[in-house]
């Protein structure tokens, strides 16, 4: 009884949401501000040819800084909740020759692709986050194949996780020593600094996502049922 009541209530809420959203979407007034135009006008000054990267790492870089902080918070909590036995055997699968062979071919390919995507982000689709995801994919595959990646939560790992954020924050703050506003890039340096930040971010984001996978409690990969006793 209470279950059907719950479904009925949820149905009403969902229909209300649908009605409201469609109403809002169809009746949207004419926009008074044309932001894409402003982006286009200031693109040259941003030091980046690709508008989305320009928005992410220059016009609205503050959002991106906080977003990297969100990733860090997630991984810090992940590390806090890892179990002490997370470091134990994951050698079991390394014997799987198929997976091993596949990994050895796939890994370089993924890493090269991620470098390409990172590099292309300054003038075409791509950038640190997509590249970081590919690095993470490479890491996850390597981990599944039994490679020992990011399994120890020591200071080196923490440094790697935070490195992108540290560089980003340092560049952002150093502007203030030159009397310029927070998050401003020095004249003429924007392009190269953004690329540097993105490169380090790619590494840190990749490592963050790998750590969240590796340190997730309850054994991150199919072990031979050795923890059942």
């Amino acid at each position, binding site marked *: 009884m209470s279950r059907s009541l719950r479904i009925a209530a949820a149905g009403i809420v969902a229909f209300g949401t649908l009605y409201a959203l469609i109403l809002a979407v169809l009746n949207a007034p004419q926009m008074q501000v044309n932001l894409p135009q402003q982006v286009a006008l200031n693109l040259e000054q941003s030091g980046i040819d690709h508008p989305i990267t320009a928005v992410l790492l220059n016009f609205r870089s503050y959002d991106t800084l906080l977003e990297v902080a969100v990733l860090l918070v997630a991984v810090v909590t992940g590390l806090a909740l890892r179990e002490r036995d997370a470091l134990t055997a994951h050698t079991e699968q390394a014997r799987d020759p198929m997976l091993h062979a596949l990994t050895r071919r796939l890994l370089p390919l993924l890493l090269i692709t991620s470098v390409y*995507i990172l590099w292309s982000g300054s003038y075409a689709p791509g950038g640190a986050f997509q590249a970081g995801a*590919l690095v993470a994919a490479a890491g996850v595959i390597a981990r599944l194949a039994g490679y020992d990646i990011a399994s120890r939560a020591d200071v080196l790992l923490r440094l790697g996780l935070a490195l992108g954020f540290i560089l980003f924050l340092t560049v952002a703050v150093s502007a203030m020593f030159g009397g310029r506003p927070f998050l401003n890039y020095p004249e003429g340096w924007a392009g190269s600094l953004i690329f540097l930040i993105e490169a380090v971010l790619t590494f840190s984001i990749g490592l963050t996502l790998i750590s969240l*996978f590796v340190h*997730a409690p309850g054994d991150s990969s199919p072990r031979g049922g050795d923890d059942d006793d």
Partner: protein
Amino acid sequence: MIVFDILLGIGLILAASGVFLSAQLFRSVVLFVVFGLLLAITWTRLQAPDLALAEAAIGAGLTGVLFLDTLGTLRKAKHKRHRKKETHS
């Protein structure tokens, strides 16, 4: 091309419904990845190649892997609980 967009939109809605209606979690997760891939195609239709890339790599790829991996541990935990119950009774 409009027909393609209508079909793609319906496909997204169906995939989402499939995720929610499926009784098995494994099928839900697989359909979720399918949803992510359809969404990646949608982003290219909306002239957002960056988002297509991100959705394929992060939304469908990584999130899918995380879900699948968790599903594995949940199953193990369930087996373990059941076995414990049997030995206790």
